[in-house]
């Protein structure tokens, strides 16, 4: 949707990105698998785009104790004219 706020999750490794998909699926959080935007990292990697409304929930799921910790870095983005525009990466997460 145009103007929609998205949160981009990036990870230390592709294995974390894949493990995170299982957790998000379990929590019924919808995500889109995207290549890590170059604004966030020059490392070619797997990133996940979720609705910003789900960001807190997702962070909670991924950091949940008792399961292998998944380090996710969250960044804000907005969909403009069908394109995903990354805003400033947030400093929290890692």
């Amino acid at each position, binding site marked *: 949707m145009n103007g929609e706020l998205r949160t981009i999750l990036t990870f230390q490794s*592709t294995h974390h*990105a*894949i493990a995170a998909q299982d957790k998000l699926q379990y929590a019924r959080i919808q995500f*889109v*698998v*995207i*290549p890590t935007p170059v604004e966030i990292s020059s490392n070619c990697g*797997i990133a996940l785009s979720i609705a910003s409304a789900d960001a807190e929930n997702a962070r909670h799921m991924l950091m949940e104790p008792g399961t292998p910790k998944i380090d996710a870095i969250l960044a804000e983005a907005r969909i403009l004219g*069908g*394109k*995903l525009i990354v805003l400033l990466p947030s400093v929290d997460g890692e």
Partner: protein
Amino acid sequence: MSTPIDAKGKACPIPFMLAKAQIDAGATDFIVEVDNKAAVENLKRLAKSQAFSASVEVRDSTFRVAFLRSGEKQKSDNPAPQPVSNGQTTANYIVFIGDDTMGTGTHELGRNLVRMFLYTLDQGENLPSSVLLMNNGVKLAVDDEQCIGTFKSLQQKGVDVMVCGTCLNYYHIFDKLQTGTVGNMYEITQRFLAAGKVITV
């Protein structure tokens, strides 16, 4: 009207070819009998492209497709789709996806890669005229939510997403197809031959 053409039990593209032969021979009114939905869809598309009307009658497990000439035949037999009209396509190329993963390796990585590839393609300016899905590749349009969404978005921009009907039939997922147009080898080969460039995933 002549005797119905019996194309029951014939795999695609045979029914299509039989009907095409009738049209090429100048027939204006004929019936083709087939026994699967894929063939019916193919015949209906053929009829449309040749300015025939096609009415379908189901009897037991047989579909009787009646062709009737309804107007002047188009100049081109079955034109490949023209590139997107909104100016987003700059070169005539097609994308061929023959598997539900990208590259050779683990399935989960390959599936993530193909999702990202399609996402990136959809975000870009230079769109293909067609995306062809074949063999395991058809599964992306059946059970992969993200890819289905991307295919729909590409179609809205005028990209022709063609799914191999034989493959859907083989994997018993014909009824589960979520997006795209079902095509036969005749139409798929035509797109290969008409393309300036083919990107194979």
